């Protein structure tokens, strides 16, 4: 009897095994017929380009020995792996849930035919996230760090019907993992892909705190219209990327670029990533997403500093100044000061004082031993006042970031220079100039990368200027602090020079480095911003006496937004050139009329005076952003 059961069992076993073998062969045939290894989703899951080679360096990503370089073999190995009995968490369906799901769907595999697998680790993970919809988050630019000057994007995964709980949703961030304390090498390594780029997952509130509180960057939340299935597929794929990293390039293969890849993966008919072959500026990638009608809803989440300045605007500068005093005053003195105000004003003052002190504390301007008890004290006093919240939400900017102008431009400018007609053609790679249409951008920052033009005049064609990099951060004085306004410019330009002297008919090219530091003032909306700075110029060129020269002097200027379509920038510089021992007056002014976000007309006038000689240029130009 025993023997019979044994034999039957063996036979059945053999039988079952044989039938699995036939199934596998069958599915491999279907895969071949459908040419699945050529399918765009398969290629994207494998991070392969046309050469059919994967860019994933991690061996554990592949089941076939030559999987990295042979997508077809990998596909076949994965199909076979679906039928292998594995320990908990070890099945391909646990380790590569997106890939497995896609194969099962494409091959129409009856899941009942597959062995039961248990993936407690993956299940626990995804049940924490409960992905239902995805929101693309844009953190506006931040001049404090070279890697974030162009802004940053990340993805938030929200569960169903939990809008009020967005803060505890999870956020997926793709970023460079920087180890140790790289300082000067940081920018270089970042530009040349020497840091590994990796995905990480964290509660969204951590990002809100980091960007909104610590870095004073407003957040814009673009809810995507991915279906719950697409969102889940995307999250399943993120799980597959646990051990995978790619070289991170600040400019091209960055956060924004990889997030586009995730969207492409779940929408095979899209090819967003392809539009950004050599540079992926986060805001430009958002515009591409918006153009594909992927955005459902836009939410503005102002930074804490934006909120504080908005309170100062609502309640008035005098109250804001009292708040700043109270923030640093001990209890008794503060009480004496507060008594003079009515309850509503007391509430306003205490609310502003808290935000002020907290911002100073996190920017390390104040000692923790003083700040922490003081912060609680301010709130305790506020809680005793029986008046509802006095903070009003800051007004949402009229234009949100995707409605701003594009980063690149082409321009043409015609006019007269020292009595001669000229025409100039210009081009800029990125990103935002003080004179550009301001809607959608942070007001008071300027960041230009590869900006130049050529000039045709007097039957001659020459390079008029080429800026490699210009950075300006205008930080207006507030009731709460007096931050520094700073900037620099590195490039090549024509100077009115001849044999070391100022000239009114000759120009020669020089390498130029300008650095400025000073203060600026503005209204709360920053529609009118003026600055005063000290500026140093260092120039080098063959036309200079010693081959180089230095100039130092004051510079003042204003940028004004007169209406939604008209703005202007005026700047006066007065360097003293050590080589000529002369002051050099320079006036530059530009007026702009914007036809829309991406087209504008410009009137420009430049004037120089030195050594009783003049140099002037006037022009009318047209700029197209694309």
């Amino acid at each position: 009897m025993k023997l019979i059961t044994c034999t039957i069992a063996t036979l059945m076993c053999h039988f079952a095994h044989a039938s699995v073998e036939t199934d596998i062969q069958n599915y491999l045939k279907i895969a071949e017929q459908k040419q699945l290894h050529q399918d765009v989703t398969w290629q994207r899951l494998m991070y392969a380009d046309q050469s059919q080679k994967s860019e994933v360096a991690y061996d554990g990503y592949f089941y076939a020995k030559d999987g990295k370089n042979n997508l077809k073999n990998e596909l076949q190995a994965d199909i076979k792996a679906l039928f292998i009995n594995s320990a908990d968490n070890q099945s391909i369906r646990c380790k590569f849930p997106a890939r497995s799901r896609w194969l099962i769907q494409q091959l129409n595999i009856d899941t009942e035919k597959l062995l039961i697998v248990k993936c407690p680790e993956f299940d626990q993970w995804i049940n924490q996230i409960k992905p239902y919809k995805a929101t693309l988050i844009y953190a506006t630019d931040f001049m404090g760090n070279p890697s974030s000057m162009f802004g940053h994007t990340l993805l938030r995964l929200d569960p169903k019907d939990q809008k009020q709980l967005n803060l505890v949703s999870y956020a997926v961030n793709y970023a460079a993992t920087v180890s140790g304390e790289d300082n000067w090498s940081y920018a270089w390594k970042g530009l040349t892909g020497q840091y590994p780029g990796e995905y990480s997952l964290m509660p969204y509130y951590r990002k809100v705190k980091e960007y909104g509180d610590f870095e004073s960057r407003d957040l814009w939340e673009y809810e995507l219209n991915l279906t719950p299935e697409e969102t889940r597929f995307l999250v399943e794929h993120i799980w597959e990327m646990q051990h995978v990293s790619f070289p991170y390039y600040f400019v091209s293969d960055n956060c924004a670029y990889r997030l586009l890849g995730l969207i492409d993966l779940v929408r095979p008919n899209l090819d967003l990533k392809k539009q950004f072959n050599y540079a992926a500026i986060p805001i430009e990638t958002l515009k591409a997403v918006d153009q594909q009608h992927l955005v459902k809803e836009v939410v503005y989440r102002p930074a804490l500093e934006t909120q504080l300045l908005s309170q100062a605007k609502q309640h008035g500068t005098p109250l804001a100044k009292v708040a700043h005093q109270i923030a640093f005053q001990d209890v008794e003195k503060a009480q004496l000061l507060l008594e003079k105000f009515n309850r509503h004003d007391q509430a306003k003052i205490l609310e502003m004082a808290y935000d002020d002190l907290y911002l100073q504390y996190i920017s390390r301007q104040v000692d923790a031993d003083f700040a922490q008890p003081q912060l609680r004290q301010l709130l305790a006093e506020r809680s005793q006042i029986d008046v509802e919240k006095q903070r009003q939400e800051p007004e949402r900017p009229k234009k949100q970031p995707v409605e701003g102008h594009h980063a690149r431009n082409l321009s043409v400018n015609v006019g007269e220079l020292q009595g001669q007609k000229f025409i100039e053609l210009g081009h800029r790679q990125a990103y935002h100039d003080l004179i550009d249409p301001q809607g959608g951008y942070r007001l008071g920052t300027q960041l230009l990368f590869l900006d130049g033009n050529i000039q045709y005049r007097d039957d001659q064609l020459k390079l008029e200027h080429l800026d490699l990099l210009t950075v300006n951060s205008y930080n207006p004085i507030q009731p709460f602090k007096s931050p520094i306004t700073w900037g620099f410019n590195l490039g090549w330009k024509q100077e009115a020079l001849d044999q070391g002297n100022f000239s009114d008919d000759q120009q020669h090219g020089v390498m130029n480095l300008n650095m400025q530091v000073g203060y600026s003032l503005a209204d709360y909306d920053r529609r009118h911003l003026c600055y005063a700075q000290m500026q140093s110029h260092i120039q080098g060129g063959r036309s200079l006496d010693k081959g180089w020269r230095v100039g130092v002097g004051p510079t003042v200027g204003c940028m004004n937004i007169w209406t939604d379509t008209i703005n202007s920038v005026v700047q006066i510089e007065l360097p003293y050139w050590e080589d000529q021992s002369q002051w050099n007056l320079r006036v530059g002014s530009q007026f702009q009329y914007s036809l829309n976000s991406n087209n504008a007309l410009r009137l420009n006038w430049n004037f120089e005076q030195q050594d009783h000689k003049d140099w002037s240029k006037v022009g009318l130009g047209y700029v197209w952003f694309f």
Partner: protein
Amino acid sequence: MLKKIALAALLAAGSSVAMADNDVGCGAGTQIWAGQKGIAPKILAATTNGIFTNQLLGITFGTLGCRQGGTVTAQVVTFTNENAESLARDMAVGQGESLNVLAELMQIKATDKARFFAVSKENFAEIYSSKNKNTLQVLDSLQSVMAKDAVLKAYV
């Protein structure tokens, strides 16, 4: 039946001893709080995790393996700990996004929220008293304030 439960408890206790300090994940958090025993350091260790490390798996709040009683789950502790400044800011005025999240995490019904907001504002000085040095003490005070309220005591 009783035996079974006792066994389960024993097993659970055994495993937590065996796992020692490793049950809060990996990374800097564990190091910072090493040497401290009990629930509080464990949860705090787990919350400081992830700030310093870039981890895809380190998101296990709510399943830390150590539970407090009532509505104060590990997620409530984590959230309160990491959002202390904005939560206190909201509480002092009796409204705001963070305070609302806390209410939701504590499963306070929509109809009782206004009361929760008002009570936490009125008793702010007690909840965020200078005596309370860490998140668990803050939550403890919040709970004792709630316990004194006719409606909110249901959530303690």
